[in-house]
């Protein structure tokens, strides 16, 4: 079974890009399955089922860090994918804080970012963009050609080696490029023992364990303070 991880900024079109891409596989009679990880709510798994009729599940992290929850459940979703008899399993994560990235060494990693997110967005996005193998840039139909080219250049400055391409999440125009890449990718037999491309944040402070009050007196454990002085 082939496996890909997909990350991206909120509302950048991760699900739309995947829906169009998986539809191309469906047309070839290739079985696919989708997992959506999110924090509190998502109906995206429902979209995969209704639009494509493919098996899809969701994992909601609720009170746990969504990225930690994601990595803690990778073996489970891989086993689920196998049970579905899928030839391709896509693991879509929520567009969250971008301190870390869901991407794993040895598993093709796709990151979606949109042209409307601003020229500073690629730099701010951190490891999710820097460590991706493929960058899908969406919403190019809404901005000038010049801005598309400048935005791509900014993406390049953050990640020189990824394959980047433009695509339209509404019409699906451009996703053929991703489909062609997936065709070339190898299967991922197991995830056990593979390593994340970027470590997850150290946490475990009082807020991690349910503290909700603001103030020094309530902060214990791993607490880091801002340096307000001498920043300029």
């Amino acid at each position: 079974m082939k496996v890909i991880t997909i990350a991206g900024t909120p509302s950048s079109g991760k699900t739309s890009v995947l829906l169009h891409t998986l539809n191309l596989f469906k047309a070839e009679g290739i079985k696919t399955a989708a997992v959506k990880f999110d924090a509190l709510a998502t109906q995206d798994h429902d979209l995969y089922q209704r639009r494509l009729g493919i098996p899809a599940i969701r994992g909601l992290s609720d009170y746990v860090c969504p990225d930690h929850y994601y990595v803690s459940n990778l073996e489970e979703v891989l086993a689920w994918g196998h049970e579905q008899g899928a030839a391709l399993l896509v693991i879509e994560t929520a567009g969250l804080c971008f301190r870390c990235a869901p991407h794993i060494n040895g598993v093709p990693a796709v990151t979606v970012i949109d042209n409307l997110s601003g020229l500073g967005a690629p730099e701010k996005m951190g490891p999710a963009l820097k460590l991706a193998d493929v960058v899908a840039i969406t919403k190019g139909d809404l901005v000038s050609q010049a801005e598309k080219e400048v935005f791509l250049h900014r993406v390049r400055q953050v990640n020189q080696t990824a394959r980047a391409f433009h695509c339209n999440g509404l019409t699906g125009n451009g996703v053929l490029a991703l489909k062609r890449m997936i065709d070339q990718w190898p299967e991922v037999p197991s995830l056990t023992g593979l390593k994340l491309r970027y470590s997850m944040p150290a946490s475990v402070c009082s807020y991690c364990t349910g503290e909700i009050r603001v103030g020094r007196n309530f902060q214990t454990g791993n607490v880091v303070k801002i340096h307000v002085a001498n920043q300029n």
Partner: protein
Amino acid sequence: MLQIKTEDLAPEVPRMASITLLAGRDKSGRGEPLPQLSVEAGQSLAVVGPTGSGKSELLSDIEQWADRDTVTGRRLVVSDGPTGRPHDGGGIVARLSQKTSFVMDSSVEHFLHIHAECRNRGQETIVEQTLDAANQLCGEPIRLGTSLQVLSGGQSRALMIADIAFISDAPVVLIDEIENAGIDKLKALSILSASDKPILVATHDPILMLMAPRRLVMREGGMQRVIETSPEERERLAELRRMDAHLCRARDLIRAGDTLQEREPAL
């Protein structure tokens, strides 16, 4: 991380002497009447046909470098260009459509500079050339210090066209309709043609259709035939342009709060 071969990366797509689309199937699965379609660099081709006739699909086949793997089954062949399909970068097509707008918060000058910079172009001359060209296209002059966000519809479109002609590196130009708003369409086409790229214009505007020396007729998803603009049609074009100018004058007068005179100036 996955191994990525450096030869797969082709961010700079070179100039193309011509593009050729080999026929596939129409919407009902029949072979297309026109076996192939070629557009040379510096030439423009209008794509005509009613809504749903397959114009967008045709443009998309070019954008996606179709290789018998799109719904139409067409194949794109490029002469004097890259031998393989570039997996990377902004693609081979610069697209100008009515939906696009500037979203950047920047002055015209800063914007042109950063675009020229990321395309490794000599900045001073190219920024001037681009602004000059844009100003030839629209009535209201664009100034370097103006914010992109306050440009009028016509000014934005003029700047986008000039930018595609002078700064953009994409070797093919697709125009998805140019609106009437204060743009000299003939000059726009000639500025783009001078940039020596194949140009495709999908349009419902008879003036734009006749401005291109050739037009492709689309029907039910298939390429039907190519018609060359005849001398008679070029005469009709002159007449249509006068009518268009007449309409524009009336629009400008009414917009400016003036009234129209009873007597019609001769067409």
